């Protein structure tokens, strides 16, 4: 009897224990190493689907004045990329050869190709390689509908963003070495800018053309556009820092004409 009384009254002394749930922080697990080092793919020249028949335009690109210095890239955040260089890597805004020759100039037939003429896009892909946290090649030409194969040769994250107006843009990620992504462009555009936002210094430029009459100048400044049918053409040379220049060339038959361009470094 007495025990019952005590138990009833004891209920009044119920204690409520309030405990605050402490949030546990999830600690970083080491990243899975699913990246395989693969041999850097060589930078390929744009594949041309044109036969050797027809006229050819060759020339040399030069510039006057002093080329601006390419900024040195601070790659300390990306040891894997930094290790691929002996000397500190620089950006490739102006790549000059001996005697002021200029590389990475996109030269193309801006007008003069008869309208209505269709040029089938090559099935061979143009390769854009990300190697040492730089793009190879830095400037490329590609036809509408031709596959652009984007390869990552670095064991680090790259995103590849295409900034375009006539084409739909894209922005895809490649967090590991050996990854490949293929994209095509649907409209002519000079130039489509390609960039990596993880590495703000990485820029590449793609000239997208409806015909195969384009070329990118080599370090000796030389370029060749071949297979041109007879006609009068406006040739434009584009450089990322020095702007554009045009020339008019008339082709009659299978001859070879010369068109040299000289930019002014300011």
């Amino acid at each position: 009897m007495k025990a019952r009384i005590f138990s009833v009254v004891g209920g009044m002394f119920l204690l409520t224990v309030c405990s605050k749930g402490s949030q546990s922080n999830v600690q970083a697990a080491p990243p899975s190493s699913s990246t395989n080092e693969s041999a850097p793919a060589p930078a390929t020249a744009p594949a041309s689907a044109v036969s050797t028949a027809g006229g050819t335009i060759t020339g040399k690109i030069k510039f006057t004045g002093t080329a601006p210095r390419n900024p040195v890239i601070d790659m300390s955040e990306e040891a894997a990329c930094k290790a691929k260089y002996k000397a500190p890597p620089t950006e490739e805004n102006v790549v000059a050869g001996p005697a002021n020759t200029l590389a990475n100039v996109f030269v193309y037939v801006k007008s003069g190709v008869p309208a209505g003429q269709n040029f089938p896009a090559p099935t061979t892909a143009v390769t854009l390689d990300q190697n040492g946290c730089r793009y190879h090649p830095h400037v490329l030409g590609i036809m509408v509908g031709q596959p652009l194969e984007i390869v990552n040769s670095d064991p680090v994250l790259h995103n590849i963003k295409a900034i375009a107006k006539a084409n739909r843009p894209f922005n895809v990620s490649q967090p590991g070495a050996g990854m490949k992504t293929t994209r095509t462009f649907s409209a002519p555009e000079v130039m489509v800018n390609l960039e990596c936002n993880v590495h703000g210094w990485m820029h590449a430029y793609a000239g997208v053309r409806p015909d195969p009459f384009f070329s990118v100048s080599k370090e000796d400044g030389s370029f060749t556009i071949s297979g041109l049918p007879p006609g009068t053409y406006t040739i434009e040379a584009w450089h990322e820092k020095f702007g554009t220049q045009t020339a008019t060339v008339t082709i009659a038959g299978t001859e070879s004409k010369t068109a040299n361009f000289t930019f002014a470094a300011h």
Partner: protein
Amino acid sequence: MISAVLAMTMLLTQDTTTGKTVYVKWCAGCHGDNGAGDGAGARHMIPPPRDFTVGLYQIRSTPSGQLPTDGDLLRSIDEGLPGTAMPGWKSRLSDRQRRDVLAYIKTFSTFFADTTQRPQAIKFGSPPSGGSGADALRVGRQFYDSIGCRKCHGDLGRGDGPSAPTLKDDAGHPMFAANLHENWRFNGGGTVEDIYHRLRTGLDGTPMPSFSDLIENKFLTEEQLWRVAQYVRSLSPADAPVVRDVVHAPLTKTLPHAPDDSAWTPVDVYWFPLVGQIVHKDRWFAPAVTGVWVKALHTADSIALRVVWDDRSQSPDSTWLGHIARVLNALQNDDSTLKPVLLPDELTVQFPVSIPSGMERPYFLMGSPSAPVYQWRWVSTSRDTAVAGLARGIDRFDPIPTAFVRTQAVYDHGQWRVVFTRALASPDTTSQLPFRTGRAIPVAFFASDGSNGEHGTRMAISTWYFLALDEPVPARVFISPVLAMVLTLGLGMLVVWRAQQKTSYRRQQ
């Protein structure tokens, strides 16, 4: 049946003429008459209003590079874009008006007229279960690292990764990597599903790429990408913080001076949102600091205030100079002569000079010449002390000589944590607020992120809130109820005992 068909046709027909009327009235102010994102309001906004002429949209259900579906666009119109100036229009415009304006917006870009561009929504599926469990979060964290989220969003997700200072959109406007601890500010929504959709589609026009290719490339599975989304969601609180007006400072024996002292852990935290200072020139429309988290404690003779805020940079930091230049350029500030310079981070705590007896308080924005306010000004270049002084308006601050407030500061992965400590009493009661228990003391906060170009009037501000130093509870508050209960118990037992005595007495009889 007929009504259903009617409803269908209503939904399908979109009238661009009436759409234009809606657009001109409600949208053109920011997005511009020609949809180029260049309306009058545009120069005050980061991120800027969408330029409809390029046909590029961040919030989509479609793969990177594809146009959004009508449903995607309607969602942005209906719900708005959190963290930006774009409000939701669902309650303001009718269904018909929103559909019409959607149709009109699409006329600004030729891509929508191109029949080869058929947006196809990704089949996202639904999140795998167990998303908040430790195992799921561990997998999420593992892939957060391996797919490189930390490069921009940082190791702890506060948008402070090594690439963060260089980010810009396609038009060159400055961009912040999202602070993943503030999911209520995610443009496309803060649920696990929203986050997963952004991982799959990317945010076109921004540095945020699509991670869909990684599934095709077998770098990870859909489930593992869901885990990343669940991990990211876990960084933010379960619910968006709500403002509670009064910071309670409990009484304690000794004050923790270090921001990371474990004595702070059980103390209640209060969140206060900050907004841009747009009252005085030059105005600031794009503050980087979005809010402060405040804790307070006091002893019999001192008070400690712990202020925590997310800031992507420990300023001054020269790696952010490019970002500062982009911010100043994008805002076309009142003062157009601004040059990008290195600036420190700043945090100011403001009180009245004395505790007001009535409802009236000094002007919240740094007082006025006739009614100054008492402030503690902390600057990241002098971390161990804050300068105390009187502000007499936004452009006049008179430091009180020798009146320093002791501070301890920690900068850690995109976050400042600063503890201010001062004696409750002050030698000079006319200008340095004496703190008292049991009174509502007005308090306000101001923050500047130097690496966002903020200094002086260019800052984030709050309104007045309150600080209350809880009075020591007298011992009788705890003892009286116990005494009363013991007394009741005793009396009750006495009554029962007497009753039992009587019963047994009768039985015996």
